[in-house]
């Protein structure tokens, strides 16, 4: 009896012992199993000092400099416009878009590269403030300068998205875990635009005015970038007073900068001038500086591409290269623009040197794009092609802002009912300055005369035409046209311009006449994984078809 008792006790004890041993082993094992990656840093060990913040800020830029991002900022801003027709080696999808048949299945409707940048910005904005407390060498003002860079980049991304897709998900927090639902409904376009304006106003306060390193002033966000972007956003919002005010800020800063640098320039605005060398020859200094060398005086913000790091393959792929047949890329300039441009046509007058700089009007079958592709043009109009795919991509430059201001002034001129001639005159001055820089003969017959543009409709179409000529192939034209249609409340007049490149213009016009068609469709894959999103009604053909 006793023996069995003891035996039972022992069993009990050994059971307890085993359970205890197992517990300790398992909890010990959990530590044993908690290994950290050896080649990467984990979140728990990151965000401790200033360099951590700076490196992720830098990755926001580096994500913008990805080929997909640059491609989309061009495609969204220009592919549907009247500038572009197919070139050589154009993909089937690109041909469909260029024929006016944009589909939700097209890869250019994928916005992932923009939200990728937005998520990086959100990550910095979320973790950055804590680092100020952790790192004694990282002070509040340094943080605020970085914060304003990131806010501006995020606003730029959202501004592209809202102009392209109208209503879009507005995501302001980083995606870190898998326990969220990830499903963000589309926010109304004006909520997105309000967020952009508020963010930019905050960014303007703390943004760096000038970096100590010269290239940073063009390649990173400065206060000037914030103001330029704000001007563009205000114009989209049809807030002309604010747009004019912010354009003024940009232009006067540039004038100040020109004075500091003791730059010589003709007229009121500090533009790089082209020189006449003799009666027929002239230099293309402005082009060579702005698009050839890059980071010119006129530049406000441009993405930088450097050797052995990131290259800009969109320019050779889309616009053309030195070695391609006829230098042509996947796209070419529309015939009605280039045909006869050097001797004068509807778009360019005979003396306009942008007819040489923007494209090769003398080509035979296709008109290849020259902007960015050509590194320099000499005074005999001979082009030197770029040997490395390292052209920068310009988001904002001075003449863009001047013409934005001209547009805002023109619109404001008729807001009060009567035409305000002061505004029109000021707008005319701005347009003239840009125009005259490209028409340097400056004989009276070659300059613009205010008398011919003294009414609102005439001035409005002059401004649009000047933007067309000046900013061709810079990813601006389609947004200019959409802005016009939004203002007018219908697509009719805008489509009369946009349809010109098509073989069957009327069928494209009738297809795109609905206001919804100004915007791109949301990619079909995105709709499948985000049940809260609704397709742009203009492209929604799935209503009648139900699949089980």
């Amino acid at each position, binding site marked *: 009896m006793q023996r069995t008792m003891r035996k039972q006790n022992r069993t009990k004890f050994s059971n307890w012992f085993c359970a205890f041993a197992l517990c300790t082993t398992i909890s010990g094992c959990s530590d044993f199993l908690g290994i950290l990656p050896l080649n990467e*840093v984990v979140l728990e060990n990151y965000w401790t000092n200033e360099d951590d913040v700076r490196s992720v800020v830098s990755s926001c830029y580096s994500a913008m400099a990805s080929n997909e991002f640059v491609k989309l900022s061009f495609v969204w801003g220009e592919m549907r416009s009247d500038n572009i027709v197919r070139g050589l080696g154009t993909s089937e999808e690109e041909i469909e878009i260029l024929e006016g048949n944009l589909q939700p299945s097209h890869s250019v409707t994928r916005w992932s590269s923009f*939200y990728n940048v937005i998520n990086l910005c959100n990550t910095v904005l979320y973790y950055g403030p804590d680092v100020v407390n952790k790192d004694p060498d990282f002070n509040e003002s340094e943080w605020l300068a970085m914060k304003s860079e990131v806010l501006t980049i995020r606003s730029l991304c959202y501004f592209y998205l809202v102009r392209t897709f109208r209503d879009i998900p507005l995501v302001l927090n980083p995606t870190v875990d898998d326990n969220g639902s990830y499903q963000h409904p589309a926010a109304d376009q004006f909520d997105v635009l309000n967020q952009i304006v508020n963010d930019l106003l905050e960014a303007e306060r703390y943004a760096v005015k000038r970096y100590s390193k010269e290239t940073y002033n063009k390649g990173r966000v400065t206060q000037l970038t914030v103001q330029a972007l704000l001007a563009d956003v205000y114009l989209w919002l049809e807030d002309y007073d604010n747009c004019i005010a912010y354009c003024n800020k940009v232009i006067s800063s540039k004038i100040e900068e020109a004075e500091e640098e003791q730059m010589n320039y003709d007229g009121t605005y500090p533009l790089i001038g082209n020189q006449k060398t003799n009666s027929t020859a002239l230099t293309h200094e402005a082009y060579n500086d702005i698009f050839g060398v890059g980071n010119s005086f006129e530049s406000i913000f441009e993405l930088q591409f450097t050797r052995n790091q990131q290259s800009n393959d969109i320019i050779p792929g889309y616009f053309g290269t030195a070695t391609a047949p006829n230098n042509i890329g996947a796209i070419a300039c529309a015939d009605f623009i280039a045909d006869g441009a050097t001797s004068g046509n509807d778009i360019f007058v005979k003396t306009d040197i942008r007819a040489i700089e923007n494209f090769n009007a003398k080509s035979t079958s296709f008109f290849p794009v020259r902007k960015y592709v050509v590194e320099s043009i000499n005074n005999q109009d001979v082009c030197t092609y770029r040997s490395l795919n390292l052209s920068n991509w310009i988001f904002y430059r001075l003449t863009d802002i001047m013409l934005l201001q001209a547009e805002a002034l023109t619109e404001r001129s008729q807001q009060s009912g009567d035409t305000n001639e002061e505004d029109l005159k000021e707008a005319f001055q701005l347009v003239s300055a840009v125009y005259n820089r490209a028409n340097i003969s400056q004989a009276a017959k070659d300059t613009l005369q205010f008398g011919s543009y003294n009414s609102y409709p005439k001035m409005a179409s002059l401004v649009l035409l000047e933007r067309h000529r000046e900013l061709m192939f810079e990813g601006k034209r389609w947004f200019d046209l959409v802005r016009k249609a939004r203002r007018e409340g219908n697509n009719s007049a805008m489509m009369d311009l946009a349809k010109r490149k098509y073989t069957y213009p009327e069928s494209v016009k009738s297809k795109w006449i609905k206001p919804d068609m100004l915007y791109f469709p949301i990619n079909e894959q995105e709709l499948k994984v985000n049940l809260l999103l609704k397709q742009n009604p203009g492209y929604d053909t799935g209503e009648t078809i139900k699949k089980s």
Partner: protein
Amino acid sequence: MYYPRELSTLNWYDASVNSTTQSGNRNRAFTTRHTLTFTPKFDNEDHFFTTMIRGELTDGNGSGSGVTTSGLPNNISSSSADGELNNMWTSLNQWRSIYFTYSAHYSYKSKYAILFTARLDGSTKFGSDNRWGFFPSISGRWNISDEPWMDWSNDWLSMLSFRPGFGQVGQQPGAQYLHFSRYGSASQYMDMPAFRPNNIRLTDLRWETKTTWNLGTDIGLFDDMITMDVNIYDQLTTDLLMQNVGIPTSTGYSALSWKNVGSMRNQGWELNINGNQVLKLGDLKAGFNVTLGNNVNQIVEMDETTLMGLNGDFNFANGSYLTRVQVANAFGSIYGFRYKGVYQYSEYSAEEVPGVSGPNAPVAHDAKGNVIVDEEGKPIPMVFDYDDINYTFKGGDAIYEDVNHDGNINELDIVYLGNCNPKVTGGFGFRLNYRRWSLNAQFNYRYGSKILNIAKMNAENMYSNNNQSFAVNWRWRTEGDVTSIPRALHYAGYNFLGSDRFVENGSFCRFNYLQISYNFTPEFMKRIGAKSAYVSLSGNNLVNWTKYSGVDPEVGYGGYGLSTDASQTPRAKYFTCSMSITF
């Protein structure tokens, strides 16, 4: 590794010419395993019990480095020689695992047996909440034929047993560090080094668990001359792990690297019959074996967005078929158009005018088969995708059945064309022995599966510059041609949309294996001083009986997608002759 100049047609300055790569890896791993087995001895020997507990722990790490240089002088293969440095890399890795198992086996006489096992697995691939997985299994066996009350059948029933089983096993994702938000370097912008988060932290990732129920029976007849076993199984995979699950890209990421997306069921049965020397005619002995089986995969439950991500929409492109993964439906259903031949004429006329027009022309028909006409009495042409592409069919184009009679071939005309899963699969074979000769023949078969013959599509579409098959000689060329092959259209037209034209029956029966062997007589072996000696001749993949027009209908099935045959290299037919002598 060294690539000499002669092996490449590239320019001399290309980075892969005269390039050499040297790399090294060093890995170290410790494994400790402890096993404790306990087998008590019972006085009553009818009882048998054994139990075991085991724990194993592995800890390993490794490092590696390498360097690639190119543009070296000919025949220099050392990477330390002066050349252009193309690449240098180092790597570090670490792995750990741990598990405990427990098993117990008990049997009483030869009649009852029960086996219980449990496994506790620890993984470094999950976050601390989901690190451990517990996977029990239990199975039993009841030899009914050994029961005393079965004695009446002992003459002919040598074995009857019942084997029920239940078990769970776990599966982990194929990547490490998923539960961390990891920061790695990105390409530098200007001169500023960049670092960025590279993934979404998967805190919610869990073990995938497969729970299997199995009912089996073993039957032996006539002293095991004929043995049979039947298995019915049902496997339910819960917390199904899926790689690259699409999420809204507005998160900044396009996919989760892994996710537990739902559950999947695999049900099936299997029947094996073995006949051992069922026939004896003097020295001739014959046996046979037959296998039948079937199994079907279906989704029991899945996240709606994941399901939609698996299911594409019709893209109006040539060559694409639709399939859908649907809850409670087997995988592998093919959807497409019905192919009805080739339009003979472009112009319609009720009576054929040879070479000009005829009734077989691309015009719309109503449900009664009458031609639909417009207000002027002209027939309405048949178009493809009126809303967007709006292609008007012409003579020589493929005819697709206009199921809803609207004169428009679009996604609404897509119908069910069959399923890729076979109804039955299996094999059979027989063995013959005659004195010292033996012959073994094995066959395998599949019945009732459908295959997309993509090879045929590629060889008959006349769309690109690719070589085409002989069949294109019979293509439609001029108005009035009667043929089943559409006209040639270079990078144009819609002549090879996903239709039943390329869906074929994949049933087959393959003569898989034949072996003839001869064992030498003991006298002969004694003469040469050998212990044993035999010669054999065998052939593999000898004949394949099938109606399938492609090379090989034995293509994979059972996945989310469709079974396609893109003309894989056919199975080799090979013969082996062997002789074996043991001294």
